[in-house]
């Protein structure tokens, strides 16, 4: 034992060759691990300023501050996260909820500053990608690891083969369970509100829907949209384009959420419980009973004005009624929301076309203010030979007559020209009216079509044959003057300088033919302002192309007391823009008539 103890210390010699724990010269720099969580790096150009990082921060270390030289615009704000490193605990949850992936934690973990409170070198600053650049190492997010709810609840649809034979709705509607799950995906960043022309309070109503409190949701809808279920069915949903979850995953189905919540409430008036307004004894005339006119009428009634709508047709709803086919917007939804507005005491003069049944001068004399919301009801033609043939018609006319229950006669082979939503509606309506083959000719590529993607997909699923990059040049008539065929050329796309979209140029020497018996034009619409007398038309200021009326921030045209909105003002030409214009004009008329400003 004693001898063993004597030799025992010498066994320590075996540690001589070991790699030491302590730092030796030359100094070896520590190599951080690949996913180490160090200081933040943020791509200020890519960051959209949604503020999710500030919301999730347990330590409340992140504050959103306005930054000057960052991109601004659709779907983004000028706010960027500012991190207080006196609080930050480097957990990386801010990165895991970043919808763009612009925020990262770098592998930089050492930083020395002389004055921690200095605004330039201090420990509170806005991370960018210069101070601590991300160089491939650090904590980043991906769809797999993101804490965001990137998967959406898909809206169930009827089978294309089944639905293409009738005018029943294409979508089946959400179940309550799916709607609640979908609503719970919202992070509340409110970027979507920038997308909505009328600025609906989307995060607020999604929150109400998530709590299954549909009455509160309806209350929020009606702050700036009196047609929520219609919008919840056919809106162009710019909000969903802006939704931050759409960057890495699928955006929230904001449109259908709204439609679902509105459909859960039968009696809006009872739920809203607006008090009886004080009578103003001032009269407002509204020309056109479309979404803009109805919206203006609703908000003016709430303020106590006497409102009269002059509607040329025998139905209200404008393009919602005569433009949008019933398989997209059921009649019951239209009735419910339009009747609700009329119930507030709006007077409607049906079959009264201004300029024919009643003159504009008369309105100007008898009413204190006028709102023009006549929309685009005049279809454009291509101006090619043979357009006078029997069987050539405008999509606007075709859809209107179909929606009013007197569908025009069409043949078995139908050609629709155009690439917008109207063209899609025309093709699908033609299918439902019994056309055996429906062709869609568009001069650009399918990706260039202005129609929404879902409309394109639905039309394709129903069997519409897309013919991109084709240009009709002549309609061939038979002996009776009916359409026999359409001659066309193919086009090629020529890139344009300055980032403009490529221009289609016809390839002249190859002419082909389609055998069709009906041609429907859906190449665009124009306003019909012929109801205005010359004297007024001269005073009315139009934009440089002469297609839209110029209005000020209150919705007033260059004629005092005359307001306008909807398609004739707004190049976006959709229902929600018309609602936004109607809402704006109602405020403007109120200001104008109450002598404020």
């Amino acid at each position, binding site marked *: 034992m004693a001898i063993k103890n004597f030799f025992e210390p010498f066994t320590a010699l075996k540690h001589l060759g070991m790699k030491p*724990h*302590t730092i030796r010269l030359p100094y070896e720099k520590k190599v951080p691990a690949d996913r180490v969580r160090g200081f933040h790096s943020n791509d200020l150009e890519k960051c959209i300023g949604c503020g999710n990082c500030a*919301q999730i921060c347990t330590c409340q270390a992140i504050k959103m501050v306005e930054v000057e030289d960052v991109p601004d615009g659709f779907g983004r704000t000028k706010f960027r996260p500012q991190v207080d490193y006196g609080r930050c605990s480097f957990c*990386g*949850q801010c990165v895991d909820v970043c919808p763009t992936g612009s925020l990262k934690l770098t592998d930089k973990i050492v930083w020395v500053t002389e004055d921690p409170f200095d605004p330039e070198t201090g420990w509170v600053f806005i991370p960018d990608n210069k101070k601590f650049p991300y160089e491939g190492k650090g904590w980043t997010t991906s769809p797999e690891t993101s804490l965001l709810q990137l998967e959406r609840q898909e809206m169930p649809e009827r089978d294309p083969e089944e639905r293409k034979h009738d005018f029943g709705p294409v979508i089946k509607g959400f179940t309550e369970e799916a709607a609640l799950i979908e609503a719970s995906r919202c992070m509340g960043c409110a970027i979507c509100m920038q997308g909505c022309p009328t600025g609906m309070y989307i995060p607020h109503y999604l929150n109400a829907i998530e709590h299954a409190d549909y009455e509160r949701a309806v209350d929020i809808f009606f702050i700036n949209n009196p047609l929520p279920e219609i919008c919840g069915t056919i809106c162009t949903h710019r909000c969903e384009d802006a939704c931050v979850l759409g960057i890495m995953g699928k955006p929230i189905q904001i449109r259908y959420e709204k439609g679902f919540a509105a459909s859960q409430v039968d009696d809006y008036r009872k739920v809203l419980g607006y008090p009886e307004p004080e009578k103003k004894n001032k009269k407002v005339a509204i020309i056109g009973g479309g979404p803009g006119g109805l919206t203006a009428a609703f908000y003016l009634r709430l303020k106590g004005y006497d409102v009269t709508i002059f509607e040329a047709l025998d139905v209200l709803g404008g393009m919602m009624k005569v433009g949008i086919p019933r398989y997209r917007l059921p009649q019951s939804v239209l009735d419910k929301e339009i009747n609700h507005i009329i119930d507030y005491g709006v007077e409607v003069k049906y079959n009264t076309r201004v300029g024919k049944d009643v003159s504009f001068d008369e309105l100007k004399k008898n009413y204190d203010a006028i709102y023009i919301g006549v929309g685009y009801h005049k279809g454009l033609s291509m101006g090619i030979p043979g357009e006078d043939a029997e069987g050539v018609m405008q999509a606007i006319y075709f859809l209107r007559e179909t929606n009013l229950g007197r569908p025009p006669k069409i043949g078995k082979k139908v050609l629709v020209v155009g690439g917008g939503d109207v063209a899609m509606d025309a093709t699908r309506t033609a299918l439902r009216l019994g056309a055996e083959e429906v062709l869609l000719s568009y001069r650009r590529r399918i990706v260039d079509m202005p129609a929404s993607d879902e409309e394109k997909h639905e039309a394709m699923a129903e069997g519409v044959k897309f013919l991109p990059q084709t240009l009709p040049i002549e309609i061939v008539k038979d002996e009776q003057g009916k359409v026999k065929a359409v001659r066309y050329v193919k086009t090629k796309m020529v890139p344009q300088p300055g980032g403009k979209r490529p221009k289609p140029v016809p390839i002249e020497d190859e002419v082909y033919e389609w055998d069709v018996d009906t041609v429907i034009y859906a190449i665009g619409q124009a306003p019909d302002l012929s109801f205005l007398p010359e004297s007024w038309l001269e005073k009315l200021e139009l934009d440089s192309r002469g297609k839209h009326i110029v209005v000020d921030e209150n919705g007033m045209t260059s004629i005092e007391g005359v307001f306008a909105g909807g398609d004739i003002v707004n190049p976006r030409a959709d229902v929600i823009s018309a609602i936004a214009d109607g809402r704006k004009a109602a405020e403007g008329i109120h200001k104008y008539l109450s002598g404020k400003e």
Partner: protein
Amino acid sequence: MNGKNEIIREFEYFIGPQHPGITGNFSIKLKAKGDVILEAEARPGYLHRGFEKLMEQRHWIKNVPMVCRICVPDPDPNEVLYAMGVEELAGLEVPERAQWIRVMVLEMSRIQAHLSYLGGISGALGLYTAPQWMTGDRDYLLDRFEELTGARVYHIYTTPGGVRRDLPEGFEDRLRETLDYIEKRLTDYYRLIFDNPVFQKRTIGVGTMDPDWAIENGVTGPNLRACGIKADVRIDDPYLVYDQIEFEVPTETGCDMFSRAMIRFQEIQQSINIVRQVLDRMPKGPFLNKPGNPLMWRVPAGDVYVRVESSKGEFGYYIVSDGGVKPYRVHVRGPSMTHGIHVIETLLVGQRVADVSPIMFSLDICPPDIDR
């Protein structure tokens, strides 16, 4: 006695809160007669950060970065417990791979906690080589943690629904290397610490507690196993995938400081075995079943008590939900609350002042877990 020539027989000592022989920010007030302690009073509270209350004001997911701070040397049981509790309340399925990863993380954490324990108790007894070695070797394990979780100490890795990231590439091999290294070093540790006559003299028969008394007073974990009682939550109430893993629960019968250190030493080997089994048998698949939207996710109303075997004893979380987006109440049952207040106050009586630090280290008291 006339007061002027009064002989002072009893002293009051204040050990801590800043004292090299104290684990963390903690204080003990002693009353001693000469060198023999008559009375000890544990004084926690220097580290109180109000975590339990704070958690009531944070969304469910936002508590994840906070819970690990409840126990600095062994943070992972907190993360796993919080996640397990929330998952049980919410009925959230955990992917199998995530359960195996959690076991691996828990055992890695146990190894590094025991290494720092052995370093600590040796340091308190003046054996300064041991803390150097242990801290250095522990760093190799922390390197693995850094690769896996992105951080060395506060890993913030386990989240309700699984774990936040999958294993990085080549991680298994590097972890095996580290385990092999630590296993090889165990012999050296044994000779350095347990063969050392100073260590033996200072620890054998010192700071003993009666097994029955230990059970009565809520002693758990290695401290209880050092009294010869085979109690381990991993065996008694298996969680995660511990029921599929083979390992031994070492016990000692000395009831003293030596036994308590020895238990930890043996557990390092057991934990290495467990991690190796996990690496061999871990299935492939998803690692995270995402809970709901972090700012909106509501956990159904109810309450749950979950417990795991941490390096210090039984760690438990009692979580109450009122169905809201935030916990209604989270109560942490930390082993140090028992060991660090009542047990140490009793054990110190009759010991010498010089033994205060070693006894405290031997019980593996973690003051942040008393003051959560």
